[in-house]
């Protein structure tokens, strides 16, 4: 049985190991058809070896020149900042988005807080009283400086009428005027 084309080509290129190469050689010696095929392969190799190598240097130079001039042109023209592409990994882009959203939320919360009154008292259901201080002022530093330059307490000094003698009548009291007038009646 004759070896197929691939096997014969491999034998011709001495790529078949022993003992298979020996068996193919024995077969080609006894088989005229296979000898002919081997001859064709031999003459094809001789033809390929005899053909001169093509001249590639000019083509290589042309390609190099073309690439160089293209790069130089784009460098001279300059690339627009808005057309510049920046490769950002998806997790980094997602993290930046989350950070931006967080900052936006903080800003919104701060704005709402600033719209609260200056100082408020909130009574918690637990009975705890909480004093909140919020400053709806654009230039808080300037305000604090101005307040610092003022006395901490605004004072009114009243001189009582002379020749009046006062006595302590009891515990100090604070009440609504309406309640007091009701009581006096």
């Amino acid at each position, binding site marked *: 049985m004759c070896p197929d084309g691939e096997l014969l080509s491999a034998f011709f290129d001495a790529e078949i190991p022993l003992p298979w190469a020996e068996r193919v050689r024995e077969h080609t010696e006894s088989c005229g058809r296979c000898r002919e095929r081997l001859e064709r392969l031999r003459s094809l190799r001789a033809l390929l070896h005899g053909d001169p190598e093509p001249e590639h240097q000019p083509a290589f130079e042309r390609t190099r020149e073309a690439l160089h001039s293209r790069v130089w042109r784009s460098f001279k023209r300059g690339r627009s900042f808005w057309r510049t592409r920046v490769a950002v990994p998806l997790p980094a882009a997602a993290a930046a988005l989350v950070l931006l959203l967080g900052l936006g939320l903080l800003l919104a919360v701060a704005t709402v807080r600033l719209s609260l009154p200056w100082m408020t008292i909130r009574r918690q259901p637990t009975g705890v009283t909480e004093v909140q201080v919020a400053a709806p002022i654009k230039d808080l530093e300037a305000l604090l400086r*101005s307040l610092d330059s003022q006395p901490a307490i605004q004072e009114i000094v009243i001189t*009582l009428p002379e020749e*009046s003698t006062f006595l302590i*009548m009891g515990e*100090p*009291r*604070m009440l*609504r005027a309406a309640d007091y007038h009701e009581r006096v009646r």
Partner: protein
Amino acid sequence: MRRLRLALLVLPLVIGVASAQELDFQDLINDPTFEALIDQALQLNITARVLPPGQNTVWNSESRKVTLPGRSVAVRLVGQNIRIDVVFTPYQEEGGTVLLVAQGQVWLSEAPEHKTRYLTTIQSIPVGWGEKVLFFPLGLSSELDEQQTFAIQLEVEIRPYRELRDKTLRSSTTD
């Protein structure tokens, strides 16, 4: 020349800053830079009265102070044998009402030994806008009404400053 121009530009700023430091609190409230303050500002109308038995006022003194919630206004009453310091602090409550806190201190020299008595108190009451509150630093006793002594009464009324300012501006433009 360039330096001179720069100096001319900076000079009004320097003058502005220097004069701002001399502003009193009323001016600060009226400063357009602090327009947002006006919504928070409160005016305390304080009337000190001396009441003899029978409750007819024999003497009174009226004062006004503009302040902010949490910022105190102190009233000092000075007499022959007495000195009274009352510190009123309004706090804005969540519901829009005001909690008025009064801290009182009384030094009283009593005849004939001239012993000095000292009394201190802190009291608070929630009040609405324009509602009048009375503070009696020497106490209030109906049993003592018949005695020949004088009671001291401090009447406090709190109003939003913006409302009062707008009213004043309206009346000045119609005049």
